[in-house]
């Protein structure tokens, strides 16, 4: 058993002091907006924790989520996570392949029964027995169920795993579903986004490591620390929204002035994520800062929201034809009603049906 030592002891062997834990904890606490005092407890928890076995499953996905977490921008800090966890199975990163890789997964599951964390990237096809995505002849569905069975917790990374994402978008040919639909009552964290913000993955995993429990989640299973506020609420262009200053196209004066992108389809008001505060690429920018509206990628069904450039207040669906039909129906009913009224007037005059009061 290789995971018996505490992380503290493990790091000490490498000549890294407890100060590293404190610094890391201070960083994560700041990310997750925990009170600074929580950093000490977190550091303490981390130092005492065993090295966490993590099994990373990749299903119907694009590997963007893996790309996101491996491109950390505070490498000295964020990369510590790879010291704190034992990434026992990760198809993109692991050296082993084929049966050896699969053996590693099974070994990790056996060694850490009930303790390992399953990270899932991608959604799972369920149509036709789940044949649309398989690894070594094992369907994603089978692999998920088998791996999750004795896991401590599941972390769905990215919108595909969290909500079904693009594979689940209309017409969803593979019958893709979110991980939450397949794992019964297993503790689950959804870290949505396409891709998710790396700090959100790191922060959430660290929290579990330190405190041995899941962070506080919203109603969609997302950590409130990262998904507690909308893009719109924290957007630096918000004052323009309030003043009614909008870009009407991507190439007009409003766009050049950096005005609010609401009219060109920004989904910021209904999208919960930390892009506006943590930003991307080490705080360089985020979509709105780069001149494009938020796509709402961390929300369920974002791909079917009626179009990225369709302003939020516009109705979804083909209203034009429906309303034309309604107009014809209304006119017909109106003419019918007046015809009926005249007929009724005549009949009623001929012989009023004595009605009850």
């Amino acid at each position, binding site marked *: 058993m290789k995971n018996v030592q505490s992380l503290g002891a493990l790091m000490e062997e490498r000549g890294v002091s407890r*100060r590293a834990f*404190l*610094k890391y904890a*201070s960083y994560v606490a700041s990310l997750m907006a925990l009170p600074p005092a929580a950093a000490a407890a977190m550091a303490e928890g981390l130092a005492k924790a065993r090295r966490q076995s993590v099994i990373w499953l990749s299903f119907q996905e694009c590997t963007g989520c893996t790309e996101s977490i491996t491109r950390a921008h505070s490498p000295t*800090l964020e990369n510590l996570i790879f010291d704190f966890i034992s990434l026992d199975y990760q198809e993109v990163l692991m050296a082993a392949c084929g049966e050896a890789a699969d053996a590693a997964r099974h070994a990790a599951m056996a060694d850490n029964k009930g303790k390992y964390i399953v990270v899932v990237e991608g959604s799972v096809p369920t149509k036709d027995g789940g044949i649309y995505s398989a690894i070594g002849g094992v369907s994603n569905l089978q692999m998920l169920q088998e791996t999750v069975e004795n896991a401590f917790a599941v972390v769905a990374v990215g919108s595909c795993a969290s909500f079904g994402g693009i594979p689940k978008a209309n017409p969803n040919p593979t019958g893709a579903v979110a991980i939450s639909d397949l794992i019964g009552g297993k503790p689950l964290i959804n870290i949505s986004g396409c891709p998710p913000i790396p700090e959100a993955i790191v922060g959430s995993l660290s929290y579990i490591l330190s405190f041995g429990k899941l962070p506080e989640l919203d109603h969609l299973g997302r950590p409130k620390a990262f998904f507690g506020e909308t893009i719109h609420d924290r957007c630096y262009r918000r004052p323009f929204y309030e003043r009614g200053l909008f870009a009407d196209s*991507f190439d007009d004066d409003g766009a*050049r002035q*950096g005005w609010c992108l609401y009219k060109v389809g920004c989904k910021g008001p209904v999208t919960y994520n930390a892009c506006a505060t943590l930003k991307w690429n080490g705080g360089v920018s985020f979509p709105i800062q*780069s001149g494009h509206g938020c796509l709402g990628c961390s929300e369920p069904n974002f791909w079917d929201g009626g179009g990225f450039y369709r302003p939020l207040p516009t109705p979804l669906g083909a209203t034009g034809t429906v309303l034309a039909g309604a107009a014809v129906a209304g006119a017909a009913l109106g003419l019918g009603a007046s015809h009926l009224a005249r007929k009724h007037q005549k009949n009623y005059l001929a012989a009023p049906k004595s009605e009850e009061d």
Partner: protein
Amino acid sequence: MTSSCANSLAPELPAHKKTGMAEPVLREIHARLESFAATGQTGAIDLAGMPLTRADREALEAFLGRGEVSATLDVAGRSEIWETAYSGVWWVRHWGGDAVASELIEITAIPEILKTDRTDAAGAVKRLALTLQQRDRGSNGDGA
């Protein structure tokens, strides 16, 4: 389209502009320092949690000034820690690579991270003993 994609076209709340948010931070520091002086209750303020611009931080830093103690840590990247001109008010800046990863103001006798953990000390005891043993064995050998 390509030309209008440049970042420079999208202005941000100018980093050089003061928002006045440094003021409430100073009030909080004062309140916490008062309570530390009176009861020994320590506290910390995470500057990342405040909507401060770069100018705000610079103003805050300049206002608090530098005191007698400063330290540089080389752990998981670099960290800078100094006591400000106000005793008991410490500025803690952690770097993660080239960027500031977190920045705190601690109101305490000495920031926790500067103290040596006894577990580390225990490890050091072993390492020191081992080193001494190796040295003594070596010098003995030399002497033999």
